């Protein structure tokens, strides 16, 4: 007679719970509870490390060329629910999956890329009475008010900067001298709305997420020193959002 068995009791964390923890889908209370369990359970900790260290070698996902209308609505839903994006808003046809690269985090030496970093930033635009997800816009306009949300599975010290079409760098967040510590969570809004001026051209927003405290002045220096994407200090990661600001039609 064969009896099926489990390696973990029902009171432990399932693979689903561990996967959600890794990608940042557990909210505050669930996240804290999972972390607390991991601290006291070697079986679950071992499974967590096994899952987090899984070397996927995903095949390239070649998607069919599609018109934008058919998937646009679905993508808005997916973005709103998943919140795992660093979105490049150039609306210029299709890109193969493996061209969209995340910048490396120098945590362990040259070329080190953090796996399962679990940090993401999204933006939204308030235009009049409408609130529009950033990735559905074809262009920004003067007077648009930018808002941001972030998702992270570990605490991070965060600062956000903008560079407008004239190359001017502006501190978006925080107002004080030090990068703000943000607790783990999913799709958490932060900062105040940033109203865009009438300088037209390419806009870039750089969200810098650091594992350790950092001065805004040091992070801004990294943005100032770069012609485009800043080189993050060690232990930090940059998420870049881009769009073009055009005159109101």
């Amino acid at each position, binding site marked *: 007679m064969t009896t099926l068995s*489990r*390696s*973990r009791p029902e009171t432990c964390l399932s693979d689903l719970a561990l*996967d959600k923890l890794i*990608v940042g889908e557990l909210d505050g209370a669930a996240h804290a509870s999972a972390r607390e369990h991991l601290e006291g359970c070697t079986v679950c900790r071992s499974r967590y490390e096994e899952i987090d260290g899984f070397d996927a070698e995903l095949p390239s*996902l070649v998607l069919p060329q599609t018109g934008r209308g058919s998937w646009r609505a679905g993508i808005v839903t997916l973005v709103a*629910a998943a919140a795992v994006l660093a979105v*490049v808003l150039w609306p210029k046809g299709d*890109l193969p*999956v493996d061209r969209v690269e995340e910048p490396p985090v120098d945590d362990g030496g040259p070329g080190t890329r953090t796996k399962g970093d679990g940090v993401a930033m999204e933006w939204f635009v308030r235009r009049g009475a409408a609130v529009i997800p950033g990735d559905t816009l074809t262009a920004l306009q003067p007077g648009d008010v930018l808002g941001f949300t972030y998702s992270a599975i570990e605490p991070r010290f965060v600062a956000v900067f903008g560079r407008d079409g004239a190359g001017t760098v502006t501190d978006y967040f925080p107002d004080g001298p030090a990068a703000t510590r943000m607790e783990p969570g999913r799709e958490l809004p932060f900062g105040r709305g940033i109203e865009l001026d009438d300088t037209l051209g390419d806009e870039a927003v750089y969200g810098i997420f650091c594992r350790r405290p950092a001065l805004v002045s040091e992070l801004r220096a990294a943005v100032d020193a770069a012609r485009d994407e800043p080189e993050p200090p060690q232990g930090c990661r940059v998420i870049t959002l881009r769009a073009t600001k055009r005159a109101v039609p």
Partner: protein
Amino acid sequence: MSEAIAAAYRTHGPSVLRRARRILANDADAREVVQDVFLSLVDRPEQFSGRSSLMTFLYRATTNRCLNHIRNAKTRLRLLEQRGAVDVEEGPGAEQQAIVRDLLRQLPEEQAQALVYYYVDEMSQAEISDVLGCSRRHVGNLLERVRAAAEQPEARA
């Protein structure tokens, strides 16, 4: 292309591949399932409504596609021919994994899903009831039938 799905593929794709490999014990089949799951999202994004988390949705989608794969006649024949020669390295629990695959070929859909979620993903019955959208009592009934089927080796021959 959908940058949203590209990003979801990068962050969630590894878990889809890992689970598909474990259920199917075949890397090529598992990669095919990964492609199917995400291409299906491109084709019909409305199937993910956002009521559950994306990971929960992908767990369901992956499980369903793996079960369809197992039940496909050609796959079933190949698995039977290759019994004992799967190409995915199996560590501890290899015997149970073989029994699970045998059961997945023959069990009705809901019992097969319960088997995967309880014995492969090691979810609690409460989690399974959330994923399947049914009562905990129903999950308990499904698992009773799974255990009964497991205890009848002649049914798996």
